[in-house]
């Protein structure tokens, strides 16, 4: 490879021109904006290289997708008989009174535990812009997302602690009833938090906060697991959830053992 080619390969694409490059890949750039990019490309080997590589990837994916998506689909014949079938609702349906009671209980516990954990909690978890990511949200929106992330951790902590510290006595059926637990209520709470976590993780990821997104996704997955524990297999399922929490305690920046000693 010539020195010139090596130089062009190692020169990075200018971050400020990424939007223009994407528009050029998909041929959605024109007018003054196009002229701006043309002038820049005349003097920036890094961006020229980047544009060529991005176009190559796009063409390759387009060719592969074309092959896969050329098949026709006919939904109506299988869809029509289902139109008159009764609609199935999710197995849980939270009543407003239940939501209010659950929210109040979690809030009360959350405030207490959150205050206790605050020195260990928020400062250890990176906030703000991931240097390698992008800041596409306005500052006010980013502040809102920061707040939402902090609130999600605070609301999740009580349930995580409760699960981590629970021991279900050995019983012939290994079920939740042995511990006198209202597993259905716990599953509903976990399901809600799992859904919220998934939505929040996606928005964090879109804003370039990969670490926070990963943490949120991990918590959401635990809640998903918790929400699907069956009453009959509760003991065994709970042990697995607890094992998962122990294994991932580093990611949580929380030590379950330390919390147990408080």
């Amino acid at each position, binding site marked *: 490879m010539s020195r010139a080619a090596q130089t062009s390969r190692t020169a990075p694409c200018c971050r400020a021109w*990424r*939007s223009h490059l994407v528009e050029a890949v998909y041929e959605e750039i024109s007018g003054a904006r196009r002229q701006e990019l043309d002038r820049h490309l005349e003097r920036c080997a890094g961006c020229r290289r980047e544009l060529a590589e991005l176009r190559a990837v796009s063409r390759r994916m387009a060719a592969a997708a074309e092959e*896969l998506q050329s098949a026709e689909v006919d939904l109506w014949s299988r869809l029509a008989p289902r139109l008159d079938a009764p609609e199935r609702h999710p197995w849980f349906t939270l009543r407003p009174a239940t939501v209010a009671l659950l929210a109040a209980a979690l809030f009360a516990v959350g405030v207490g535990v959150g205050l206790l954990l605050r020195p260990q909690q928020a400062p250890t978890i990176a906030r703000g812009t991931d240097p390698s990511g992008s800041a596409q949200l306005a500052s006010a929106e980013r502040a809102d997302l920061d707040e939402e992330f902090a609130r999600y951790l605070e609301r999740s902590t009580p349930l995580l602690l409760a699960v981590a510290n629970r021991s279900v006595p050995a019983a012939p059926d290994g079920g939740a009833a042995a511990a006198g637990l209202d597993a259905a209520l716990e599953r509903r709470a976990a399901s809600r938090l799992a859904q919220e976590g998934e939505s929040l993780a996606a928005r964090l990821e879109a804003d370039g906060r990969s670490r926070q997104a990963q943490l949120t996704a991990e918590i959401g997955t635990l809640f998903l697991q918790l929400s699907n524990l069956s009453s009959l*297999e509760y003991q065994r399922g709970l042990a697995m959830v607890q094992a998962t929490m122990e294994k991932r305690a580093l990611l949580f920046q929380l030590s379950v053992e330390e919390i147990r000693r408080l």
Partner: protein
Amino acid sequence: MSAGDPETARHPSPNSAPQSPSESELLERAQRGDRDAFRRLVEAHQSGVYRLALGLLRQPSDAEDVAQEVFLRAYRSLSRFRGDSGLGTWLYRVTLNACRDHQRKGRFMKLQQSLGLVAEPESRWVDERPEADPERSTRSGELRREITRALAALSPAERDTFVLRQMNQLSIRQTAEITGRAEGTVKNLLFRALRKLQKELAPADAGLEEASP
């Protein structure tokens, strides 16, 4: 957006002939319970919905299940559709949500499998639909593996943005509208997606020339 707008010419709206009399009329009739009108709307939009689901889920049978689910949801929600956005845009949003629901269930299944609570199913690389051609299925299976492997490297946000723009051939503006994101965010997600895909796919073509403006 006018009919003479270049963007409209290159990126036909997902709403087919946006709010054209024929689609508007079909929609009104379907909202009044006309089953045939709903069937025609399904036929008009099923390819786009299926293509989006296939891009996100990468399995034809899963994509078809989700596509059916999308139109079922649409059928049950027709009376609530106010027309703030076009019907196609609305259907794409429903498809994104349906795919996320499907993946959520699939993720839990994988959790159960990893914990040994259920047996893992055999890999399904072959199109299992009755009308699938075996020879085509083999070739498709290799392509699907390549695309699946590549798309798996993307975050959910990158993936749905990329599929909408690249595979469904919607514009950046249309993609932003469907996903509820700013256009700048969409462009950033596309950039990151393309960079990640570049790393996942086989080495770049030899003799790649620098791009001319």
